[in-house]
């Protein structure tokens, strides 16, 4: 049972995406699409034929599978509703970050592969952002990892007790920025537009269609939900189950859904309240968040709690 | 003691209230005379027994008295000199009545803050007073009585750098307070007298940290290199009487703070730690300033760099330590406080006469203005450390102390730099003094200053009078040190507790 918890991510991740879109629309005074819209989109895309450019190589065709597979592997490592999962022993939080990085690497390659201007642009931007985001994410997780004495996400979730301390808050704020950047949301990227001058993530997907696009989008939804889950595990582990009783797992599942809902709200709020930054302003934001993460680590070492 | 502090304030208020350009200067001079009359007995008394006031907040021992005497003497001298200087500025239209009133008022507040430094027993109060001297003197430099771009630039650098520096001194003071409360509780824990008693029990590593901060902080204010950049600007752009005060005594009051700290830090950390730091800072100052003196083409800046050099020598003296080293340093403070203001007074007159502060624009001072030229010559020789003059004696004393302690590298470097400085100063001023007078007509500007300086009127004579007195002191001190000064310095050495 607990080995299958990653299925939750696969199934529910489009729902989270739909939820954020709906909430955002409501906050902006629009009706917006229904929360199930991403499911319909995925089904529609899976049914459609594909158009693949003749100049592309095997990388273009392999990338959707690699991205999807790497994301699912990450989902297996991260505890979702219970920390008792033997998959968790196979990798720690660093592995999670590098699984994401592997997916991103292939996505960037695929963006370049088709040889279009926008794909290359998207790839180069994505890589620039990731240079800043990856170490920042690591640092903010390290604060928690040091206090838990382990980089294993399950151990962190079990022993996490930083709840009311400055380093915790600093790391959390840095992590939020990292999540925003990783999921390609405002103010870093705008997920709703294909305006060529601003897009980052969408630029790399521009050449994909049909089944491949469905896989890529799905992987993206999953990554988003995984990052939320990671945030919940590391910063708000209250309620996560560490035993194995079915009743407790059910309760944990309910709590988990509540947390996901709250995070979706927070994300929608951030997206509605902020404006997209110009690309060359990003280093300021991400650099600031990096310093936050850094300070959090230092403060943790200093205060020692 | 409170009266001593009140008199300058009252004078300042009077000067600000007065609305007559003629009498303003004399009132201010009168104020300093009254101050001197009140203070001299106190100073003399302080050499035999320390005095306290305001429940121990104010305190006066021989070191305070020694520095205070210099503050008062130079305050008097520059008040006297200011009369003629400001009348000249008024005539050529560089200032107006408002400017003069502000100038005199600030001058006396400046004197007040320096007096407060010397009488403060509480180290934090001393810090407040030192910071106040910065603020007041910055105003005097920047827009005391005329608005020029360069003066504002100098004042800005001065106040920013000194405020930053002195912030560190306050940190050092805090740390000292921390160390002393650990030993004696909070009551009077920052009073120098109390600290002196328990100096041996303070935590050495804490005091080391405190001393480093204090040295950097007050060292900035005292013009020790490498944080000396503000000094040449400020001293060369200030009005000459103010330059004289800044160079002659303000630097010394900052150094006075360092000496007070040395005497409470040394018992716990040992004199090697403080000594090495002071010697290092001293040698760096002497070295850097000697290079700049050599290449300087502006005589007021040359004098300012010479101030850095002399502060370096004083620091070296205190750093070498021992009764002889401290004796030499204290004597050097006095000698420098006589020679440097004399030179700044003279340079003010030269500037008024030639309308330029560049060495190349000035020549034949000795032949065109025999009295002023002679005085300048005496000052130059003294500053360069030529044997029959006062500064040679004190430099020699410090050297002797260094040789006695076997600090050969420091002694050798000092001698080397002293030679460079000797050449630099003599070359610069020698050109101004002796070079042909025929170029004078060409170089001098046509209109301003020319007519005024020709006629020796009464205020001008007052200024020359005080300069003659100072030159006389320089020669007298060079020949032999009078008994009462010798006695006073020996008392100071004893108070500072040098073993």
């Amino acid at each position, binding site marked *: 049972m607990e080995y299958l918890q990653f299925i939750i991510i696969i199934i529910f991740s489009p729902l989270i995406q739909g939820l954020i879109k709906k909430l955002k629309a409501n906050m902006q005074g629009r009706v917006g699409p229904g929360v199930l819209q991403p499911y319909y989109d995925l089904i529609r895309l899976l049914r459609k034929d594909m158009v693949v450019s003749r100049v592309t190589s095997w990388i273009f065709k392999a990338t959707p599978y690699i991205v999807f597979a790497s994301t699912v592997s990450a989902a297996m490592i991260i505890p979702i509703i219970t920390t008792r999962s033997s998959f968790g022993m196979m990798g720690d939080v660093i592995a999670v970050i590098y699984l994401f990085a592997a997916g991103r690497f292939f996505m960037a390659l695929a963006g370049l592969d088709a040889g279009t201007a926008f794909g290359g642009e998207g790839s180069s931007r994505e890589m620039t952002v990731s240079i800043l985001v990856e170490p920042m994410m690591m640092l903010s997780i390290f604060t928690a990892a040091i206090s838990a004495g382990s980089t294993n996400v399950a151990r962190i979730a079990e022993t996490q007790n930083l709840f*009311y*301390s*400055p380093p915790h*808050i*600093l790391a959390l704020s840095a992590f939020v920025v990292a999540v925003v950047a990783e999921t390609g949301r405002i103010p870093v990227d705008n997920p709703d537009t294909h305006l060529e001058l601003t897009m980052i993530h969408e630029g790399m997907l521009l050449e994909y269609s049909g089944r491949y696009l469905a896989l890529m989008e799905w992987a993206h939804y999953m990554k988003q939900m995984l990052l939320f889950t990671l945030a919940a595990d590391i910063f708000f582990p209250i309620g996560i189950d560490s035993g194995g009783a079915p009743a407790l797992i059910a309760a944990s599942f309910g709590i988990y859904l509540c947390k996901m809902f709250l995070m979706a709200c927070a994300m929608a709020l951030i997206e509605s309240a902020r404006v997209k930054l110009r690309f060359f302003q990003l*280093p*300021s934001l991400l*650099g*600031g968040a*990096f*310093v*936050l993460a*850094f*300070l959090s680590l*230092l*403060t943790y070492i*200093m*205060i020692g709690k | 003691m409170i009266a001593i502090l009140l008199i300058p304030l009252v004078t300042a208020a009077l000067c600000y209230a007065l609305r007559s350009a003629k009498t303003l200067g004399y009132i201010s001079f009168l104020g300093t005379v009254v101050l001197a009359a009140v203070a001299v007995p106190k100073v003399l008394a302080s050499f035999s027994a320390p005095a306290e006031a305001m429940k121990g907040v104010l305190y006066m021992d021989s070191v305070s008295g020694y520095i205070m005497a210099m503050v008062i003497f130079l305050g008097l001298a520059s008040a006297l000199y200011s009369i003629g200087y400001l009348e000249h500025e008024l005539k050529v239209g560089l200032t107006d009545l408002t400017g003069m009133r502000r100038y005199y008022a600030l001058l006396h507040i400046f004197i007040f803050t320096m007096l407060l430094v010397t009488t403060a027993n509480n180290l*934090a109060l001393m*810090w*407040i007073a030192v*910071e*106040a001297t*910065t*603020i007041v003197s*910055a*105003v005097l430099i*920047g*827009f005391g009585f005329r*608005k020029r*771009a*360069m003066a*504002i*630039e100098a004042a*800005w*650098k001065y*106040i*920013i750098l000194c*405020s*930053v520096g002195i*912030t560190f001194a*306050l*940190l050092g003071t*805090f*740390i000292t*307070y*921390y160390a002393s409360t650990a030993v004696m509780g*909070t009551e009077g824990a*920052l009073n120098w007298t109390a600290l002196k008693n328990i100096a041996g029990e303070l*935590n050495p*590593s*804490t005091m080391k*940290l405190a001393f480093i901060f204090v040295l950097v902080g007050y060292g900035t204010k005292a013009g020790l290199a490498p944080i000396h950049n503000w000094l*040449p600007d400020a001293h*060369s*752009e200030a009005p000459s009487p103010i330059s004289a005060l800044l160079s002659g005594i303000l630097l010394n009051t900052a150094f006075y703070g360092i000496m007070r700290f040395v005497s409470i830090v040394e018992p716990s950390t040992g004199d090697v730690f403080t000594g090495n730091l002071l010697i290092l800072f001293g040698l760096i100052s002497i070295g850097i300033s000697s290079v*700049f003196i050599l*290449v*300087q083409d502006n005589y007021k*800046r040359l004098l300012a760099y010479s101030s850095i050099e002399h502060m370096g020598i004083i620091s070296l003296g205190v750093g070498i330590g021992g009764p002889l080293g401290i004796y030499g340093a204290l004597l050097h403070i006095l000698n420098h406080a006589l020679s440097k203001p004399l030179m700044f007074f003279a340079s003010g007159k030269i500037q008024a006469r030639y309308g330029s502060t560049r060495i190349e624009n000035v020549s034949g001072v000795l032949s065109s203005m025999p009295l002023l030229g002679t005085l300048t010559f005496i000052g130059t020789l003294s500053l360069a450390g030529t044997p029959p003059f006062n500064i040679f004696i004190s430099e020699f004393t410090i050297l002797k102390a260094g040789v006695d302690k076997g600090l050969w590298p420091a002694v050798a470097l000092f001698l080397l730099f002293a030679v460079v400085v000797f050449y630099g100063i003599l070359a610069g001023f020698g050109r101004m003094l002796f070079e042909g007078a025929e170029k004078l007509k060409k170089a001098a500007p046509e209109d301003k200053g020319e007519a005024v300086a020709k006629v020796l009127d009464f205020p001008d004579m007052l200024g020359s009078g005080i300069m003659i007195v100072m030159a006389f002191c320089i020669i007298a001190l060079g020949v032999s040190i009078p008994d009462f000064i010798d006695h006073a310095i020996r008392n100071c050495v004893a108070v500072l507790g040098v073993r």
Partner: protein
Amino acid sequence: MKNWIEAFSVIDFISVGILLTAVAMNAFRRLESCVRTYTVNSWLLSSLIAIVAFMIGETHLYIAAALTLVTKGILLPVFLRRIVKQMKVTHDVEPYINNALSLTISGILVAVVYASLSVGIFVSGFSKNVLQISIAVILIGLFIMITRRKAITQVIGLLFMENGLFLAGFSLTFGMPTIIELGVLFDMLMGVIILGIFAIQIKRVFTSSDLDKLTILKG
């Protein structure tokens, strides 16, 4: 109430907040934001003193907190805002180095301070990290002074240094005697007023508030 403060480590939060506002100074582009950051910093400082006063029950610390609030939290920001308005320089701070680098360097400064003071030369105060934070704030203030071009930003850097200094003094000794603090604050107030007047003079004489123009005097 006291338990509550302990449990939620309010003192840690406020001191880290003081550090954060200092670091944040590096990120801001507009002069008004800088002044506002300074205001927040001063309010945090004052509230920290007040809370410690409450915790240890010292009346003279309440006075210190009030004095800090009045001078640093109200008078100085109002004065600075007026200067900014008078100089009509509401636009960019124009640092010599870009914001990201400047943020990074200030982060490194904090690390250096933490590392060098972690040995614990003297820690007996109320919170282990306050001394480190205060030294870091002093250094960041200095760094801001070095890297900013506008006269007013230099003043703000200086003020941050002073705040750090107050925090340091406070963490070491629970504050100086009130009369001394009054004197120091008065000095500071006068200094800033004079600096403000100078800044306006610079603007008027050099027709620019950039300090780059101040290069007549050298050598």
